[in-house]
């Protein structure tokens, strides 16, 4: 029996080649760029095997090949350079081989991952995949990985939703693709599907940290962003919002490399909102006015230290890294601490088999500030907006008792001193990866991934708080336990037949997600007790589980290495789909044509104009899974009769026809390299139509049900994405690179259910979805205007006199569409300048064009009952008629402001220590960087920050300015060294 099983298993792995005594060849040389500069870190490997090494600091490499075969190809890759190939000229002895790599301005030669393990060069693909290098991430010097991506990828809008420490960033790729689900892309770290939900365990208003914030930016090797339909084969029914694949650093054979990085940063509020300085109040009596922004905000320090070790021999390599982040928030009483440890191990078993392990442990704790938001009415900044600024908030000097804020909300100073709202995470992410090269041309791999975390959030308001809502205090504790498992097999096989090159790929992908949330709460607390103990305790629990099983097949045909055609078919079955529509199919096709590789181009003057021209196109389908794992089921829910427990049908009917939302997307584009590689242009047009949008649909209540989730809506979007890279100066002393991205989108809902337009819950009935309109537009009361467009009062008389002075009180007009939070375009502009060997400068501008923000903050600031904003002083000073602001606060159109902004996102000066000094320090390299982040914002928006949002990462509550702290302005000093 045993031999049979063995041979069966062996044949499974296609290992059937006869055993022969093997020779050995040693290849050595250097990897340099075309200017002669060493390229340390360049990968040198035998294509299609596990055999490989990495160039050291002077670009040198030495590769020992056991069992060499004639025809083996030596392949060299370095980020930002075109790959180079060299067929082995000998199979014994030693061989010398140097490489000179040519810069790849558009990175077309870079390897990207298109199916679960199918690596392919970007130039063969019909769809765009963007890559961001680890350097670009760590240079941004952010606490969170996702915030660092801002402006680095064309077609991805990265938005930090709150200035509270601890994360809260949203990435939206190619605009909005859903209404009912999270619109965040799917994240994969080293093949492990990771959770990036933003659980609101306790509503602290306009803030919830997204779980990607747990990752350490220092561990990142590179990030690939797969937009749209191209991701279909990768993650079929989870690919509608794009896929972000993160690859962490791994060890390389050679001497132990140690690197250390330390940062000190100082954060502050970028600008304050002007406050009311009128010396009187409504009744004319004199008052002292305060600017509470001076008291609520602080200068906040941040310390970050990272130490990493890596190295190994030709069989085993490792990467070990640890980071400690510590920062205070610019809102008093807020802070964030995070520790990350990562260990990545790789073991080459033999020429044909290797195994890799990735592990990461994260622990973090954030103290955040509660800020009302859309469902609650208490909080720190909330109190700031909902009060006149002439109340002295300081505690009584004798008793220490905080005075009431006047309107029943908590005194913000009391919140700072006595409330606690910590949020903590413990998380483990682990991946196991087997890769085999069983026969020439074939790669087979298996991956197992696990991501598990426990998140706890608490709200503690002590007894005797100034909040009228909690006279006896409240203590709430909510815990979310989440586990994600994925298990994937992929096999790809390359076959050459003359000028044709076939790449076959098949694979399987299994995913399981489980989330349990338990929340306990009590009021009427015992004195000094912070845990959930007191009268009226309540507890709730919810459990969620979903499984998805996917299969795919992919075929790529290359013709003369110039034309590439790709087709794939993915099938997904998920427990969240209705049982009658469980199996879903997602086909995709793509084509890429390297026009400049044809002789007619090369030989003509065209080649001088553009040395590379590629045309590409892709068409495909992908899906978006229903938000609720059990939405398809007709549930029976608790219904008591007196003290007896019974059940009745939920008023939401189940739907065994519930399918994933389905996106049809096509894109057309070109990649152009001009001026002999000094400039690169990437241009893409995309067109997306999402049908089967899952929306609540009304059901005839006569049936005993009221609503049902069904695939009823349609959403359309299209836009262009551009990327421009310029190597302006490439001198030996001065280099100057410039790059820019630009993307547009114009999402429009073209169909909703027969029930018509509906408001998004928890949006103060302002944010609405309607057919023919932008998703999540603002709908509210308007000004009444006369025929010539003047704002008029109730009698129809213009409220401004001939001199433009306001003399009347505006009439309140009917509710209409008053704004759209979706920007029309977003862009970035980056300059990198190097001077000599030791100095480099960098500046990045990000911007958003078009779209509106609903400035609810301003409405509160000028509402007479609170009136702490500068505008309201006009009424107190008699510049506008009495009652003007009381009327204006009811006209929501007034508070719709232009969103367009430009931010000086990054500025950095780096000084690399001279070699002489390094020698004395005993290090290979060291650099000092002085950088700034979010230094300046140019915008017409009148609030703190046009980027932040009271709806946090919610899909449709966007552009809502309400008591959300702004993103801080940061200055940082960073020291990095390698030894």
């Amino acid at each position: 029996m045993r031999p049979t099983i063995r041979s069966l298993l062996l044949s499974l792995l296609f290992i059937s080649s006869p055993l022969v005594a093997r020779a050995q060849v040693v290849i050595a040389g250097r990897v340099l760029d075309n200017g002669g500069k060493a390229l340390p870190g360049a990968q040198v490997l035998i294509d299609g095997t596990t055999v490989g090494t990495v160039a050291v600091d002077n670009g040198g490499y030495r590769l020992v090949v056991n069992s060499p075969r004639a025809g083996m190809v030596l392949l060299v890759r370095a980020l930002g350079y075109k790959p180079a190939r060299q067929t082995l000229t000998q199979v014994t002895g030693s061989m010398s081989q140097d490489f000179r790599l040519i810069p790849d301005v558009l990175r077309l030669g870079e390897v990207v991952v298109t199916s679960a393990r199918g690596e392919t060069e970007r130039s063969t693909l019909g769809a765009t995949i963007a890559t961001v290098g680890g350097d670009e991430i760590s240079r941004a010097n952010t606490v969170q990985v996702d915030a660092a991506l801002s402006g680095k990828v064309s077609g991805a809008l990265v938005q930090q939703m709150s200035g509270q420490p601890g994360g809260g960033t949203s990435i939206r790729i190619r605009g909005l693709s859903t209404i009912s689900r999270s619109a965040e892309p799917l994240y994969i770290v080293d093949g492990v599907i990771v959770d990036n939900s933003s659980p609101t365990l306790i509503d602290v208003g306009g803030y919830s940290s997204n779980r990607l914030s747990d990752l350490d930016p220092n561990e990142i090797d590179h990030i690939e962003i797969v937009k749209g339909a191209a991701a279909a084969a990768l993650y079929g029914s989870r690919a509608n919002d794009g896929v972000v694949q993160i690859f962490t650093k791994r060890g390389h054979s050679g001497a132990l490399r140690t690197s250390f990085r330390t940062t000190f940063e100082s954060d502050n509020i970028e600008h304050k909102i002007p406050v009311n300085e009128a010396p009187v109040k409504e009744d004319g009596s004199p008052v002292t006015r305060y600017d509470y922004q001076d008291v609520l905000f602080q200068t906040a320090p941040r310390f970050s230290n990272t130490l990493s070790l890596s190295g190994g021999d030709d069989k085993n390599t490792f990467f070990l890294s640890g980071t400690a982040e510590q920062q205070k928030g610019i809102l008093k009483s807020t802070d964030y601490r995070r520790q990350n440890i990562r260990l990545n191990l790789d073991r080459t078993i033999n020429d044909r088999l290797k195994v890799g392990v990735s592990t990461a442990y994260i622990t973090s704790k954030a103290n955040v500030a509660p800020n009302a938001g859309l469902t609650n009415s208490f909080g720190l900044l909330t109190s700031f907006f909902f009060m006149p600024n002439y109340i002295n908030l300081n505690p009584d000097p004798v008793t220490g008792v905080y005075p009431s804020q006047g309107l029943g909300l908590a005194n913000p100073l009391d919140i700072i001193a006595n409330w606690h709202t910590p949020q903590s995470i413990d998380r483990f992410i682990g991946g196991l990866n087997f890769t085999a090269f069983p026969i020439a041309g074939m790669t087979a791999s298996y991956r197992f991934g696990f991501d598990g975390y426990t998140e706890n959030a608490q709200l503690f308001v002590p007894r005797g708080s100034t909040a009228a809502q909690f006279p006896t205090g409240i203590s709430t504790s909510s815990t979310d336990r989440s586990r994600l498992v994925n298990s994937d097999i992929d096999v790809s096989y390359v076959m050459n037949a003359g000028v044709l090159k076939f790449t076959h790929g098949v694979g399987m992908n299994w995913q399981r997600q489980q989330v349990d949330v338990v929340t306990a709460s009590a009021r009427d607390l015992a004195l000094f007790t912070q845990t959930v103990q007191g009268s009226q305790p309540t507890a709730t629990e919810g459990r969620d589980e979903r499984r998805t099983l996917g299969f795919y097949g992919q075929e790529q045909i290359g013709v003369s290495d110039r034309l590439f055609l790709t087709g794939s078919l993915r099938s997904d079955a998920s427990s969240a789909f209705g049982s009658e529509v469980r199996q879903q199919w997602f086909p995709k096709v793509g084509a890429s044509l390297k026009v400049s590789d044809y002789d007619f181009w090369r030989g003509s003057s065209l080649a001088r104009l553009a040395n590379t021209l590629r045309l590409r196109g892709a068409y495909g389908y992908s899906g978006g899974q229903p938000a609720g794992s059990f939405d398809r089921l007709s549930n029976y829910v608790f219904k008591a009769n007196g003290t007896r427990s019974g059940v009745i049908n939920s008023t939401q009917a189940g739907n065994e026809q519930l399918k994933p939302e389905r996106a049809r997307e096509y894109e057309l584009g070109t990649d152009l390299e001009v001026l002999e590689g000094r400039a690169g242009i990437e241009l893409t047009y995309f067109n997306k139509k999402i049908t089967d949008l899952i929306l609540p649909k009304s059901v005839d209540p006569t049936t005993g049900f009221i609503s049902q989730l069904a695939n009823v809506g349609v959403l359309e979007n299209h836009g262009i994405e551009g990327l421009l890279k310029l190597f302006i100066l490439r001198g030996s002393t001065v280099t100057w690179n410039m790059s820019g991205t630009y993307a547009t989108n114009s999402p429009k809902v073209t169909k909703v259910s027969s029930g018509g337009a509906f408001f998004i819950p928890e949006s103060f009935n302002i944010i609405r979805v309607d057919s023919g309109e932008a998703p999540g537009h603002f709908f509210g009361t308007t000004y009444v205007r006369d025929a010539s467009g003047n704002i008029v009062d109730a009698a129809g008389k213009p409220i401004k006199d001939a001199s433009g002075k306001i003399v009347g009180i505006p009439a309140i007009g009917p509710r209409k569409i008053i704004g759209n939070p979706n920007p029309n375009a977003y862009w970035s502009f980056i300059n990198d300048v190097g001077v000599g060997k030791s100095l480099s400068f960098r500046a990045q501008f990000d911007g958003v064009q078009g779209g509106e923000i609903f400035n609810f903050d301003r409405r509160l600031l000028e509402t007479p009952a609170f009136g702490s904003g500068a505008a309201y002083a006009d009424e107190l000073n008699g510049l506008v008629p009495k009652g003007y602001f009381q009327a204006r606060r009811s006209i929501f159109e007034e508070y719709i402001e232009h969103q367009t902004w430009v931010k000086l996102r990054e500025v950095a000066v780096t000084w690399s220590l001279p070699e002489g000094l390094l020698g004395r320090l005993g290090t290979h390299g060291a650099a000092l960087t002085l950088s700034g982040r979010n230094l300046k914002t140019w915008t017409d928006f009148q609030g703190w920050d046009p980027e932040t949002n009271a709806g946090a990462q919610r899909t449709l509550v966007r552009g809502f300015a309400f008591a959300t702290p702004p993103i801080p302005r940061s200055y940082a000093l960073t020291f990095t060294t390698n030894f």
Partner: protein
Amino acid sequence: MKFQINDRRATLRMVAAVLALMSVSACKLDISNPNAATAQGVLTSVAGIRALAVGMQGRLSFSMDENLYIPAVVSGELGTTSITQSTQREYQNFPTASSNSAISETNVDLLDIWAKNYGTVKTANDILDNIDALSFAPGTKAGLVGLAKIYQAWSYGFLIEAFEKISIDGGATFVDRPAAFAQILSLLASAKTDVTGTTLTTDFTGSILSPNFDMLNTIRALQARYSLAAGNYADALSFANEIPAAASAVITFGGADINPFNNYFHGQKFYGAISTFRANAEPGDTRVDKFTKSNSFAPLGGATTFETNIFSSDGDPIPAWSQDEVTLIRAEALARLNRLPEAIDQINIVRARASLPAKTAATLSTQAAVLDEIFTQRTYSLFVTGLHWADERRFGKIALAKVRYLPYPFTVRATNPGTPANP
């Protein structure tokens, strides 16, 4: 050679490890919902049907909110105290408006009165449609079936007194009042057969049936109530005569299942009794102080109202019907059959309960006078029982023809093409 063998062993171990890891991920894609019961679990189990019967009774208690307040506000028994209660105020303006446009089709409570009652109908159907496939003791099954029919009939009753036409087949067709009453009476007759044909088990009466709910006499009372409404006066009289003088039935609350009216009447003070209830009462009528208090609520944009004196705790039961109602059904049936002296006798029973002097054939000399007196007695005896609006219609006390029934809820109109035109 040795190296090669080790190589293969390593490979084998890898394959074994991969297979072991893959087995972790079993491929089942039907996951049961741990957060709620599903149709599959509830409708095919004995425990599920029992739980549905409890839920059905809870559902009707829950629907008493709109079933009582909407007719009471429309017919002027109750007034809303605050101008901010825009939803409820639409009902207050309704009877005086010239058309039913006073109530918008999107009024939330309009959907509630429809959906909550049809919810009870649906749960009753869940029981009736699935019980035969399950094994119950005969006395338990008879109870469950009878109870489901009573609750369904009762819910149809609330609906047909609020809307001109209703559906008795889950929305496929809409029927007018005679057909609706025929269905209600047929369900009740069938329920009567169920509960009288078999001795109900103590298991049913003790742990499923709501406490203090006399099933048989409730069937009789509802038969009498809806026979009267359908114009079958002889039937109404004979059903009413079946009910013993001491019988009663109530909708019970307890625990977290609370009577909402304590909060509405005494907590948030949403509603008060319109002042005419006290002002127009016959001197000495004990029902005035039984149902209302003498303190008035400030009229915030509405009529002057007095605090009610009913439902003053969260656990107070709501009567399913009362002896006064039964007596007055007898009186009305007799009066309409033109048996006036007997009708006056019944009126006097109720008057005596309210410490009022007896009427005579001399003081109530015509059928119209007798009916007027019955209407007055119903007004005072059946305060906030959900019957007053129907009484106003039956006794011809509504002047405006257009506002006799509610408009159909928007959601019904949007989803059901068979929805009749608004009255």
